[in-house]
């Protein structure tokens, strides 16, 4: 399964403050670990909302609003897309993200990505049943 790992913004990230050398080098090493483990699909840092815009939708109306945006807690500072076996594995990886700099608490959110099975267009019910029957037969012959 895939998960989006969403690094929430902090007042410091919104202010465009550079992380400490310690954090930068630990983050680099952590990203290397993700790659070496074969779980890293994608990941980037995101610039502060002062560099961004919002597009608001109402019916066919579009309204463009320039950043910065006030609600830091709702903003993002970075993301990863990981290939994992379970949410538990994702949690275990995220626990290993380096400690934030002193005085700056962090929040990272993990959300599973929709897979094709979720859209129901993979196997028809008949085929799912067939597959399950075959598996049960094999297991019965243990």
């Amino acid at each position, binding site marked *: 399964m895939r998960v989006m790992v969403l690094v929430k913004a902090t007042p410091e990230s919104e202010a465009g403050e550079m992380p400490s050398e310690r954090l930068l080098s630990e983050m680099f090493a952590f990203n290397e670990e993700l*790659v*070496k*483990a*074969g*779980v890293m*699909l*994608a990941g980037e840092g995101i610039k502060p909302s002062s560099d961004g815009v919002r597009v608001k939708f109402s019916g066919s109306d579009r309204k463009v609003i320039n950043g910065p945006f006030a609600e830091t807690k709702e903003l993002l500072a970075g993301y990863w*897309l990981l*290939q994992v*076996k*379970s949410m*538990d*594995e994702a*949690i*275990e*990886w995220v626990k290993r993200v380096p400690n934030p700099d002193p005085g700056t608490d962090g929040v990272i959110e993990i959300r599973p990505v929709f897979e*094709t099975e979720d859209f129901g*267009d*993979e*196997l*028809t019910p008949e*085929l799912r049943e*067939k*597959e399950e029957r*075959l*598996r049960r037969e*094999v*297991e019965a*012959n*243990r």
Partner: protein
Amino acid sequence: MREGPGSARTGAMPLVRTADVNRTVDAVWRIESARLIAGLARLVRDVGLAEDLAQEALVAALEQWPESGVPDNPGAWLMATARNRAVDRLRRAEVHERKTRELGREIEIRGEIAEPDLAADIDDPFDDDLLRLVFTCCHPVLSTDARVALTLRLLGGLTTQEIARAYLVSESTVAQRIVRAKRTLSAARVPFEVPAHDELADRLASVLEVIYLIFNEGYAASAGDDWMRPELIDEALRLGRILAELLPAEPEVHGLVALMELHASRSRARVGGAGEPILLLDQDRSHWDWLLVGRGLVALERAQTSGGTIGPYTLQAAISACHARARVAEDTDWDSIVALYDGLAQLTPSPVVELNRAVAVGMACGPEAALELVEALASEPALREFHLLPTVRGDLLAKLGRREEARLEFQRAASLTHNSRERAVLLSRMAGCSSRNGD
């Protein structure tokens, strides 16, 4: 007796529910087990014993972490615990006379364990150990089935049950394969090491073969009424990506990863709702996973710029990349594909490669040129029972308007395939040749 360092309260979650701990342990196992077993195997020189020790540490974790909390560094905890168990075993075995000749080895192990320097283990030695484990699991003294089972177990961290389910065999079959594999390695005294430079190419080919077999088991699937098994595709991709970081200077590793990423990118598009196979050229490309396509192209570039000669996996990946770069089938660069097949035919000549090349020639130069090549293959013994030969022939004949001949070819193909869904497709192509309506 408390085991392992830092199993104390600092940063750990107190009073964790056992069910939660079980899931965390599973996750930690998936992340750490290969390195754990590899590090232990270097110490005890036996992958079977190494796995036993790792499993003992796992059990200890399941028993202790609900009370003590999950340690900050679970991998280090498991390693320290396993090593302590190794020393325990040796102490008990000391009593037995037959162990005295291994005293030399024991002293070596004690010497290593006496160093309470876990930090030293966290660096490169782990990568080397993991590589040693990779080559050991894929050692040529083992049968292919054994290599696959051992790789999935020791490198993939899959349980016997998971492997059995994925391969549609019984658990006992898998368990026996693994036991026998370990015994074979012991009996043959296979050293726990990375092969010497002059052996590396051959040994690496064996490793890549194992990973590609796992991939194809999940992707192309070999059972009678087959379907894809994404867990095997994912596992092969993961192992390939791991290997690419362990051996970044080996172009064929990147080539294999590129090939797998590109093939996997089409998983969603290649099977219809009724389970029928959809040919590459007929696939809805908006269903291709463009993230994986991108990764495949990056891996291909790594393969092509790694230096050294281009190998067969890289060539196959390059062919796949030609398709991937075409947003619609009509934009496919068939001339490049033909040239790549020329290269592949030189490196790994085979009738199947020639057949694929003929298909590409047909697309690049027209069906007549291709038909000549295919007719020349008709006498190849290797292709006699291969359903794709008459399929290709039928396809070319149909394009040339020779419908009755095409119909006979599709009929022959349908009789040769073991796959009921493919047979259905071929039978409908037969019917298409009989119909009075124009193409």
